[in-house]
């Protein structure tokens, strides 16, 4: 079961903080839900910096990022 981080509607940098907390817990895959392109790019950058694979999927006008090792 994927761990889900719902970061929709949160101000910068909380989506990244929540995603990083989930990464540190180490239960993969992680699904991060965001609602702006800014948050999508920020979470993507943080995950790639941590050496994770990132898959992005548009859900309506929101985004789901799936982070895997």
């Amino acid at each position: 079961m994927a761990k889900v981080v719902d970061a929709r509607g949160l101000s910068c940098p909380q989506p990244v903080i929540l995603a990083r907390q989930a990464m540190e817990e180490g239960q993969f895959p992680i699904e991060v839900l965001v609602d702006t392109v800014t948050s999508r790019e920020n979470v993507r950058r943080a995950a790639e910096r941590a050496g994770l694979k990132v898959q992005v999927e548009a859900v309506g006008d929101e985004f789901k990022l799936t982070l895997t090792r």
Partner: protein
Amino acid sequence: MSERLTRFFASRWGILLAGAVIGLLAPLLQKAGNPTNMGICVACFERDIAGALGLHRVATVQYIRPEIIAFVLGSLIAALLFREFKPRAGSAPIIRFFLGMFAMVGALTFLGCPWRALLRLAGGDLNGLVGTAGLVAGIALGVVFLKRGYSMGRSRPAPAPVGWMTPAIMLGLLLLLLFRPQFTKDGPIFFSVEGPGSKHAPLLISLAAGLVIGFLAQRTRFCTMGALRDVILMRDTHLLSGAGALFVVALVTNLALGQFKLGFAAQPIAHSNHLWNFLGMALAGLAFLLAGGCPGRQLFLSGEGDGDAGIFVLGMIFGAGFAHNWALTGVPDKLAEGVLTVGGPGPYGQAAVLIGLAFCIVLGFTMRERAR
């Protein structure tokens, strides 16, 4: 194509480009007429708008600054072109309004926003170092709150007018600037005839520069507060490289244009009261962090439909009105017949900074996301 451009703007090169363009255009705007070491200053320019509207009556700082208008509209254009315009609001608006007010009190104690702190430094004004140190301190304190779970709560998707409100306000300001109505005898709209408010680049140049910056900053998410926050919070230098590019390019441009004068004392529209330069910017930095962006970033966010950022902008403009009406702002150094009088805020201004810091610290401890 659009996706490839988006990835470029999100890259290191994108943020470097945005910082470099701001660093180049600001000294050029100064050359074209804007005040010294104030080619661009979001806080000062919003203060000038407050004065033009009659929210304060300090005759030397009243002008409807086209750059502010164009920052929002440039961001709006970028957001519409790249399908990122998204009306949203509802994340603690009244708190954001007061954060904007106190951020302005802090910025006007120092006499500048984070952009101007860098631009002042790039013009040789070493007080910019003290201000930046204060900014770092305020942001570092805010990072502690972020790590403890500080949150303003979530915004929600909102009906279209919520997103269009701030761009509409900016269009209204543009009309007031173009038609210059005078609503009562000796009343607003005011335009300074002397002092910093009277110094401005030609309208079309200001508008064009502002549109370019608004566009680039929306695409790259340029943010001076975020630059320092991301380094302190997670050793991420992405945004910092943008702020660095701004500083380096502004420094080189100032040297090339002969706009560089090194020192602490009697710098243009500045004071060398170190304690209050530091504390003023510490307050501003903390307030920007709690609200999620520097004053420039709040303008760009409001251009892409963020109604909460628009509330913060209005808070800054109203805060500027109060700050000048109540004489809370820093007074510049005076140099008369070789005698230097060090400026800074008066007792009420000092109290306002301390109250603002207390307000922000209470928020830092108490604002948490509530479970549904």
